[in-house]
């Protein structure tokens, strides 16, 4: 009888201890948990910014958590309601979906407490990306863009330096080099080809949506692909499947259409004498550098105290004033205070905020279903440009791809 009683008591004790231990946790009322998807080198620069902010001894400090697969984890914690970060950096294309799903907290409390966090103090498209139906849901950190790097030595070798005179390299200018290149040299690679295509659409005066519906199988989309395809058909684009990015770094490609953030990697290549300009266009009158943005956001979290919100406001104001550190990651900083400072001009990407026309060229798609369209473009653009598939047939497939996903995704009501 004694053993029996003791057995039950032991079991109860173990269960009680498990419960208590599970409930224990470090008191985080004085810490802002800050998730970012910055798994590359850029994560280190954000670490530094957070460290600098915490060094000012704020009442509530920030803990930066670099979160691989962040969006998957976001959906997990939002469903469970536990472990929702106080602050998170999300990409521009995520904003419409999250707002529609009712998962983002408006930034009203932050902008009220911090008067300088307002539209006038940021690059306009970076700010308006977070404006949905008149409500502000995000505060921008940067704009990161598709850009075009050029090899100064090759431009000189092939007498193409004049291409840069008006800061617009046209497709015709590139085609004029046909038959003039040495074996193994190419005019342009296919880095970020999907972004290049999306930029061409703007150059052609088109869009990816018509009356709220996806517009993929359109004359403009077809023209965009055909324009780029001319470069490939002329034998001037790095061969399909080759690593065009590496070939640019090897000094065999005149132009590389990758991102602002690549400048740090290119700068590390010995002997690569390079500069940056706008992505190529079909016309000298219009150019576009397809862009996105890293945006600070707050997912709905009943545990986020007013003190924490105030702390977030302080942190974002600090970022607005001090994100020159972020420029080291190669990004175009969204804060005007930073980009208008003298030291910012030392960074290569300052080219893209040097005048109004350049700023306007940084185009961010905010269409609700942009992510599906981008996925369709990315999946098929390589094959279309290389002539591996029929363009009309493939545009139909892409349109269907997007429409099917939209139809399947319209599920559930916002909570």
């Amino acid at each position, binding site marked *: 009888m004694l053993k029996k009683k003791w*057995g039950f008591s032991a079991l109860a004790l173990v269960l009680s201890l498990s419960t208590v231990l599970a409930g224990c946790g470090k008191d985080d009322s004085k810490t802002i948990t800050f998730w970012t998807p910055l798994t590359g080198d850029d994560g280190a620069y954000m670490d530094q910014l957070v460290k600098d902010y915490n060094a000012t001894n704020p009442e509530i400090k920030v803990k930066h958590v670099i979160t691989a697969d962040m969006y998957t984890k976001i959906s997990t914690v*939002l469903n469970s309601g536990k472990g929702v970060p106080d602050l998170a950096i999300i990409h521009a*294309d995520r904003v419409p979906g999250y707002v529609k799903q*009712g998962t983002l907290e408006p930034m009203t409390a932050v902008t009220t407490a911090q008067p300088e966090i307002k539209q006038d103090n940021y690059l306009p498209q970076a700010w308006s990306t977070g404006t949905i139906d008149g409500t502000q849901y995000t505060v921008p950190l940067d704009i990161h863009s598709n850009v075009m790097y050029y090899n100064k030595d090759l431009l000189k070798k092939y007498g193409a330096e004049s291409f840069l005179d008006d800061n617009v390299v046209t497709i015709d200018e590139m085609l004029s080099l046909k038959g003039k290149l040495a074996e193994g040299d190419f005019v342009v690679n296919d880095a970020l080809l999907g972004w290049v295509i999306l930029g061409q659409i703007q150059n052609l005066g088109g869009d990816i949506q018509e009356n709220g519906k996806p517009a993929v199988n359109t004359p403009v989309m077809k023209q965009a692909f055909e324009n780029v395809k001319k470069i490939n058909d002329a034998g001037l684009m790095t061969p*399909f499947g080759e690593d065009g990015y590496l070939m640019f770094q090897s000094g065999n490609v005149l132009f590389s259409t990758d991102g602002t953030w690549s400048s740090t990697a290119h700068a590390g290549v010995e002997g690569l004498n390079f500069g940056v300009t706008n992505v190529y266009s079909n016309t000298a009158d219009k150019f576009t550098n397809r862009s996105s943005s890293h945006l600070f956001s707050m997912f709905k979290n009943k545990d986020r105290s007013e003190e924490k919100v105030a702390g977030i406001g302080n942190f974002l104001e600090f970022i607005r004033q001090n994100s020159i550190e972020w420029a080291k990651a190669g990004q175009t900083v969204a804060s005007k205070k930073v980009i208008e400072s003298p030291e910012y001009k030392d960074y290569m990407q300052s080219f893209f905020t040097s005048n109004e026309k350049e700023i306007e060229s940084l185009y961010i798609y905010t269409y609700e279903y942009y*992510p599906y369209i981008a996925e369709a473009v990315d999946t098929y653009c390589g094959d279309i440009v290389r002539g591996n598939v029929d363009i009309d047939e493939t545009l139909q497939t892409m349109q269907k791809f997007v429409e099917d996903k939209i139809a399947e*995704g319209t599920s559930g009501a916002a909570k």
Partner: protein
Amino acid sequence: MKKKLNLAPVFFVGPHVILFAVFILLPTIYGIYASFTKWNLMNDPVWVGLDNYKTILFDNSSTFHTQFNNGLKNTLIFVLLSVPLLIVIPLLVAVALEHKKVKGKSLIQSIIYIPGLISISAGALIWLLLFNKQLGMAGNVFGSDVSWPANQPYAWIIIIIITVWGGVGGNMIIYRASISGVAQDLYESAEIDGAGPVRRFTSITLPSIRFPLIYTFVMTTAGAFNVFGQPLMMTDGGPRQSTHVLMMYIRQLAFGNGESIAGMASAMAVLLGLIILVISALQYYVMNRNAA
């Protein structure tokens, strides 16, 4: 005497059962439930019965039907190409290592095993450079003029190479352990009777290790059906989606950019699970029957 209630087993088995229920059983049940819904992972799922399955299996005009068929076809190609190699190659290596004249067995085993510990993404970067036309061995040493990731059948070849390179070690260790457990008497008797090395292999080694062989065959096949990292990293599903495996579609639908299409993804995952279940059952049945 009144029977004493013995609680000791509960304490030993309890933690494992709890872990299994929480991390495997409940998610599986919920995943099956999700396959009957329209769900974006954020809001409440909406019950749609068999709609997802009907679309995937029978709606020829649907993108999801096309994706499932293409993904399954490519997955089957991968399974048919990689599983035989992942069984035969480690088996041959294990037999060779067990030869009494081989020195440094442990060192060789370690070297062959280590690739399995390297992450797919790190290994893929290395192999892509090796097969790079401009910078790699394929182009400079062997004179290959092909862009491997962008042309077939080269795309499958590099995927299979990295898979075998990374996967040989696991099965090899199992085979080596089981071969070392075979009674030496059998080999000695056979040798006395005039059996050559090939006959000894087919008549003694293979029958003796049939259970490890069955186990590795089933597990390797199931693992191959879940292939994801190699085609993602090596070819990104190209060229022309010819290496786009089913798990890539499933993951993209559930966790890709844009609103999640988790219901359809779950249905595809359940179908894949059923296929693996049926094939595993067939494998057990056929090999156990033959082994009797």
